[in-house]
């Protein structure tokens, strides 16, 4: 079997999609950061919540870094065009994550200069604004950006707002808000499973309910827009990009297995929420997480198959990015594909360690007895 460049590009787009989906799943950490005062009424309760998240936040952070690294290595033109163009959006996202990294460690430390509340606010900003903006940035993969790429592959953004103009598009905003509410649903379900404190547990379900009801209409709207609006498609031979109506609906009908996977993902997510709300299942987080990862993987993956454009240009559609015109070379993608065989190894040890650390639910007593707690 001969592996073609397109095979490698598709493989790497799939990997990027999976890493992106794992990141969205891991944003339960961010969702949790916005629920400190909703779920925790006393200082002990809040400490418990923070420590429960505090053993996971670095993984989310690392997954985001990995997402960026994979994009850079596999699709460097996207890295150049989007990061260098939608400058303020990405910078704002980065600031939201910079402040997260110190907040856990410094919040409770004596002499921390700004006080405990300040660091909690940083966590809140990271969990709300940070996730919202990431959602907006991901949404532009469908809705496009204002850029031109010339024949030397130098790129240029045409709006002086450098990416912030994306906030004027309701689809982008809905996408961002959708991720925020999803992360909060996931966070509540995570606490449901990992925290052993009755007062917190009894507040969890209400949080799941409210945030899920906010999430659902946004989700349906986003899916409807993706399926029924015009999309861009490129000719595999001439590479010319053109507009096709209901592009992604056609894609799903032509590739029904992707549609089936997408529906399995969505239904598993819904079933998980149902189990938590009506069957009191503390393990619901496993269902919703699986559903989230599968759904987001498919949503991102469809941008890279079936001659789709994964980053449309709003000013010059021929500048739009596809996995074919933006990727690394055959050699580089091959080398990295060999390295990617490490992915299952990494997932395996993360899983083993996670299990060992989470074998027992976390309690207030445990935190009080550990001088190293957050």
């Amino acid at each position: 079997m001969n592996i073609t460049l397109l095979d490698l590009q598709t493989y790497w787009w799939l990997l990027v999609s999976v890493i992106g989906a794992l990141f969205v799943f891991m944003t339960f950490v961010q969702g949790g950061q916005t629920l400190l005062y909703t779920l925790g009424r006393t200082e002990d309760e809040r400490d418990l919540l923070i420590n429960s998240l505090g053993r996971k936040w670095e993984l989310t952070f690392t997954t985001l870094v990995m997402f960026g690294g994979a994009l850079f290595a596999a699709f460097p033109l996207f890295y150049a065009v989007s990061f260098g163009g939608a400058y303020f959006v990405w910078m704002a996202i980065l600031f939201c994550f910079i402040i997260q990294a110190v907040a856990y460690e410094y919040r409770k430390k004596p002499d921390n200069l700004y006080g405990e509340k300040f660091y909690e606010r940083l966590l809140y900003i990271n969990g709300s604004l940070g996730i919202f903006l990431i959602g907006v940035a991901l949404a532009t993969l469908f809705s496009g950006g204002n850029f031109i790429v010339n024949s030397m592959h130098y790129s240029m953004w045409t709006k002086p707002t450098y990416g912030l103009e994306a906030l004027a598009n309701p689809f982008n905003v809905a996408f961002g808000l959708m991720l925020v509410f999803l992360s909060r649903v996931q966070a509540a379900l995570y606490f449901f499973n990992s925290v052993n404190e009755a007062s917190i547990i009894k507040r969890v379900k209400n949080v799941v309910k409210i945030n899920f009801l906010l999430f659902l209409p946004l989700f349906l709207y986003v899916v409807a827009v993706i399926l029924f609006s015009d999309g861009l498609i490129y000719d595999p031979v001439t590479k010319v990009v053109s507009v096709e109506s209901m592009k992604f609906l056609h894609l799903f009908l032509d590739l029904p297995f992707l549609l089936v996977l997408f529906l399995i993902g969505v239904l598993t997510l819904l079933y998980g929420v149902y189990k938590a709300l009506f069957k009191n299942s503390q393990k619901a987080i496993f269902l919703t997480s699986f559903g989230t990862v599968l759904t987001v993987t498919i949503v991102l993956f469809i941008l890279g198959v079936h001659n789709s454009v994964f980053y449309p240009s709003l000013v010059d559609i021929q500048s739009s990015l596809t996995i074919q015109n933006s990727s690394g070379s055959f050699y580089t993608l091959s080398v990295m594909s060999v390295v990617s065989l490490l992915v299952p190894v990494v997932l395996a040890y993360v899983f083993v360690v996670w299990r060992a650390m989470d074998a027992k639910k976390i309690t207030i007593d445990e935190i009080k007895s550990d001088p190293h707690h957050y």
Partner: protein
Amino acid sequence: MEHSDLLVDWSRAQFALTALYHWLFVPLTLGLTFIIAIMETIYVKTGDEKWKTITKYWMGLLAINFAIGLATGIIMEFEFGTNWSNYSWIVGDIFGAPLAIEGLMAFFMESTFFAVMFFGWDKVSKKMHLTSTWLVAIGSNLSALWILLANGWMQHPVGMHFNPDTARNEMQDFSAIFFNPTGVSKFLHTISSGYVLASLFVIGISAWYLLKKREIQFARRSILVAASFGLITSLFMLTTGDEAAHQVALTQPMKLAAMEGLYKGEERAGIVAIGLLDTSKEIGDTLEPFVFSFEIPSALSFLGYHNFNAFVPGIDDLVYGNKKHNIMSVSEKMTQGKIALHALKLYKEYKKQNNMPQAAEALKLFEAHEKYMGYGYLKNAKDAVPSVALSFYSFHTMVGLGTWFILLFILVLYFTMINEMHNKKWLLYLSLFTIPLGYVAQECGWITAEAGRQPWAIQDLLPVGMATSNVATTSVMITFWLFAILFTGLLIAEVKIMLKQIKIGPEEH
């Protein structure tokens, strides 16, 4: 697409600012993780709970440092896209891979086992915990490996070719990049400097306890581990530094000349041990470069080429050429580079018109002059010279301080061995005041490496002026100041928290 000088300056300023801040925290992590792993190993071997206290105490300080290291680190990766987008395209095919591998191999290892190291004392077995601590140390050093190989590649690009169709450099030989001598020596020199800094940190803080007559046993044991580790690794740092300088001589002669303030090349060139540069000195004039200087004869020839009689080219030789030593002038390289760029443009145009014979002709012309393509972007031959003052002073500060650290380790280890360290107040004070000097040396090292290779983002291939993103200068100015304010605010908090933890001490910790 040429950018305004102002945009280039601000983009560089922002990268320098974020890199220098990030580097305040990385070396301590690189070294302290190993020191902690050694301490915990002693604990597990001896079962002595006091060693556990010692381990946990230094771990606490590591966590404070680690958090801000992550905070300042995430921006570094993304800045290549946000502020150096042309760079990202032109070399992304080579540069992206080590970054991605770094994330996959190292960052996950670090972050996963970091959680075990901190919260796993009662959750996993002693052995598993110790393994986790070692894995954090290995993981953090692995991440340094990949990013420094990437940096080494920028200093000495190997293993790739320029593809005229995509207008970028593409990877051809991964092992050449992995075994790039510049990258390997940079990695070894950098991590060993991190070990040295961490040793200075542990010795300095322990010395403070001894001065205060507190935590005597804790401090003595910490000093013993750190001074042994520091002395061994500082000797390693010395040899890797020698190798790094040798590589600079071979691949970046202009940088070496600037580091030494050498304008007129010579055989048996000496090293200026101490010197004050004459600020009115210009390239090509007859002024002496130094107001005063103390020189070690023939040392530079030996350092650079491992031969006391070797000729070391000076800045003037490199700018104006030197027939005798077969050095091409910058203006000749610029001429060749401009021909290459023009031929590339022609090639693209003919190809668009489907005029294949002409395109092939243009391609041939391009390939004949490709080697100096980067010089085609320069406007003035003198632009090929980095700031001599910055390179010279930062290099000499680093070397001078590095020498002092080795001496300090010897003294501390000696007096610890004869059980006199706690009585030597002068040495305790010296140890304490050497902590900030360790950081100064670290930053000077990076300034030498990065300022010294200007104007190149990629040596001889891509000047910084061609590498930046097409964003408005004001946008970069805004983010520059935001970073400056945020990082400074976080740094002050970090130092305050750290000092408080040191004051609290290990017993109540």
